[in-house]
């Protein structure tokens, strides 16, 4: 699996793969008009992950639009075959919608989710 780093913009998240930790981090906001184009390189990168590669996907998004929601689902589904995958879903305390969004994915895909509550004031 190769390197991956996409810088954040006002409407798209920073996406980076930390290869020493085998950790894929998505952070910021994901509200592009056409999420398919934005997530294409990420999905292509995910295709290169071997099924035995341990991987943690850290999702730390403040907002994502419904166009992005399907791309996130596509990402989780592509990684679903990995035998050692965990999604760490971060959400700010008082942001129930983001917690529920993570629970929705947890319900749909066969990947273990860990929910991490963050104090936005901290």
């Amino acid at each position, binding site marked *: 699996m190769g390197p991956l780093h996409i810088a954040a913009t*006002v*409407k798209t998240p920073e996406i980076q793969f930390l290869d020493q930790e085998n950790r894929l981090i998505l952070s910021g906001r994901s*509200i592009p*008009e*056409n*999420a*398919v*184009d934005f997530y294409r390189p990420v999905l292509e990168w995910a295709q290169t992950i071997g099924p035995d590669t341990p991987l943690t996907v850290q999702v730390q998004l*403040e*907002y994502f*639009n*419904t*166009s992005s*929601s*399907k791309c996130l*689902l*596509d990402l989780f589904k592509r990684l679903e075959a990995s035998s050692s995958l965990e999604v760490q879903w971060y959400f*700010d*305390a*008082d*942001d129930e*919608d*983001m917690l*529920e969004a993570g629970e*929705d994915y947890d*319900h*749909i895909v066969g990947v273990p989710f860990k929910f991490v509550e963050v104090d*936005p004031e901290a």
Partner: protein
Amino acid sequence: MHGARSTGSRWSTLIAFEGIPSRRNVDSLLAEVENLVVQRTEDRKAFRAIIECIQNLERHAVPNLPARFSLSGRVVKGEPRFCIRSLNPIRDAELNDVADWIAQYEELQEMVMGAMEEGVLDWRQLYRNWLARGERTPRGGAGLGWVSMARMALQPPSIRMVESAGKPNLFFSVEVACGS
């Protein structure tokens, strides 16, 4: 556009936009709305619904004709409520599709309401079902915007075709409450 967060119990207009739904105008509108609406973590709920509404204007409205968006606010039991409305001309080639889609939406609303009464389905479950379907609209949308808004709104969005300036327009309205 103008705005100041309402502090009373009556609706007051916070932002009113009328213009071409270009990328630049939409981005500018989103930035202004966010500054106005999101003052606490809980307020993100309203902004999430607004993102879907405003991006739908760019995605589906006639590109060279003005569209309208308005945001009203009021305070109920100490918590803000927002009324989000939009009106945009419908592309000629999509009139039949939009009419079919509204008819489907109305049928689905009735079905969901009936299923909710029986306790076998709710908006969240419907959202999950639609998300899992993996289909997309022709312009890259997820086709999930209205379900996601119905889920977070006080009532399902009101969506209908109306005549404005002699042309068929799509009218959209939804009310979102933030906080507990």
